[in-house]
């Protein structure tokens, strides 16, 4: 194990450095060993899909990427910076990593517009007018230009989730994390959210997506990870994994969900 004196100067060539690299991630919640040594590398424009049975640790893995959960062991490298080094300014790093949650987590006391602009103004110190302009751009992008003055409570689940995506995109992140973003939605509202994500992938955004939407995983994912009981069971190209699953666990899982 190496201990670089400066977290921003990792060993190796910066040009070859992937966008994100997870090294031997372990996570315990008390005595519960949720992640048992996971390695993962994401290059630019990758759409990394993570699937697995419930309780397998896939959400925890995603939340380890932006250190919402601090890995008990292991390292998270983002653009060559070690996020797990306690000297790293996590607030700065999180500006570049957007995340969208299953429960939307919009701020209910703020309008849609204010939900998007507040971090621009308070974190990125963007001026009011510029922030509004950037927010508009993203709200129009997710098809909610007309809802800017509404409150989250007045929107459908699908609309709220699109606002949450716009809120994350307005920060101009270099990586987007999606944590089962369609699981809390009524079936007829899933499509509008997936559509936004598909367009985003088409625009070249690097994405890590924990999902139960098997169709989306196959069509949009460039790489897929199947984890179970905190370990990577199988990984590869999604279509290939669907067509010819190597492990019995994946075969069993696909049999249940497809």
């Amino acid at each position: 194990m190496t201990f670089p004196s400066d977290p921003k100067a990792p060993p190796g060539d910066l040009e070859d450095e992937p966008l994100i690299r997870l090294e031997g991630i372990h996570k315990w919640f008390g005595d519960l060993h949720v992640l048992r040594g996971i390695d993962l590398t994401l290059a630019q424009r990758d759409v990394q899909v993570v699937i697995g049975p419930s309780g397998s640790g896939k959400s925890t893995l995603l939340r380890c990427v932006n250190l919402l959960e601090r890995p008990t062991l292991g390292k998270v490298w983002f653009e060559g910076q070690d996020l797990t080094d306690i000297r790293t300014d996590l607030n700065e790093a999180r500006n570049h990593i957007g995340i969208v949650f299953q429960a939307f987590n919009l701020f209910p006391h703020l309008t849609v517009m204010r939900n998007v602009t507040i971090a621009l103004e308070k974190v990125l110190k963007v001026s009011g007018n510029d922030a509004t302009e950037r927010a508009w751009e993203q709200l129009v992008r997710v098809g909610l230009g007309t809802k800017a003055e509404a409150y989250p409570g007045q929107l459908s689940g699908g609309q709220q989730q699109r606002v949450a995506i716009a809120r994350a995109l307005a920060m101009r992140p270099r990586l987007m994390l999606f944590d089962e973003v369609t699981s809390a939605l009524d079936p007829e509202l899933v499509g509008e959210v997936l559509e936004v994500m598909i367009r985003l992938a088409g625009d070249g955004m690097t994405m890590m997506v924990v999902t139960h939407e098997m169709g989306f995983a196959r069509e949009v994912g460039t790489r897929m990870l199947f984890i179970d009981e905190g370990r990577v069971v199988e990984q590869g190209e999604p279509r290939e994994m669907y067509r010819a699953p190597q492990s019995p666990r994946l075969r069993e899982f696909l049999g249940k969900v497809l």
Partner: protein
Amino acid sequence: MAAVEVAVRDEERAPDVRGPTAPLPATTLGLGIASIVAILGGTLALQLNTVLTGAELTPACVELGFDEVTGGTGVCGIVETLGSDAQTFLAILAIVTGTVAMVLGFGWFRRMDSIRKREQCITGGVIGIQGVALSLLLLWFREGRPDLIAKNFLNWGVLEGYGYQFLRAARNTLILAIGGELGGIVIGLVLAVLVISKRRAVRSPARVYINFFRGTPLIWQLGAGGLLLTFGFNASISPFAVAILIFSLNTGAYAAEVFRAGIQSIERGQVEAARSLGMTYGQSLRYAIVPQAVRRVIPPLMNEFVILIKDTALVVVVGLLVEQYDLFTLARSGQATTFNATFFTAAALGYLVITLPLIWLVNRVERRLRSGLVGFVGAQ
């Protein structure tokens, strides 16, 4: 049975489906109302009549020594009216009508064939119980020594000339309570932020402060606080200011718990969303959590305020100057001068004038909060 006509109309309001009434339930309701009106309205009217026509000292009152008491004539009027035949008649009337309403209402409500009839039976019976109970209570009370009660608690004559002082005392009570509440909110907010810290070193001092002020009697804090400030810190501040300070420190401890609960009631996802957008811990508290928590803590804070208004009475242990007297201290001073407790009755009425509108307001706010519309739209 006549068919209940329910005209189905295309209107905003739902139709009234309570159905028609009938003589029996209507009579039951009428008797119940008659009972309560006789004992409450009747008694009040009799007393008012005595006041308006002017009471006089009867031989019986002279025998009780009322001729030598300030305001004795008024007290005599109250006692004599209470013992009058008219009062006896009203009480018996209320008992009879109330009993009939009870019997009819509770005997027949199950057999009623419309909602309106049933409700009238039940309501009539319930009000009848209240009329009968109040009447029996009054007759019982009359058998004791109502003259002593009236002389000591309802002798309005002794209050003469105290009007201005009572107004000033009410103002002082409000200053104490509002000052203490405002100070307490500021202290409480700071304490709440400290006490939710993940670091024990930050948390512990705040916890010690809160437990100390919640765990010792306010009356002791007032007494000891004054001495500590005067002799311990050599601070020469007025006892009134000391009182406001102690009320602030005490309220701060309770407000801290209210704020803490409010902050902790906000879903975890809110902090996570804020932190994921790059906000610091302080920023996520300030822009995401506290604005939501503040709305939730308004009703409990208002309840604390009502409690504080009444607790200001404890300043009686602080040596206030005469012009600083609050309602309770004034009442005690008046009672000490005149040996009459009517001052306390007046003080209690003063507290009610202040607290009742507040209690009404808290209930209203709580109802709105439960219906989900407070400040922002559609929040759960």
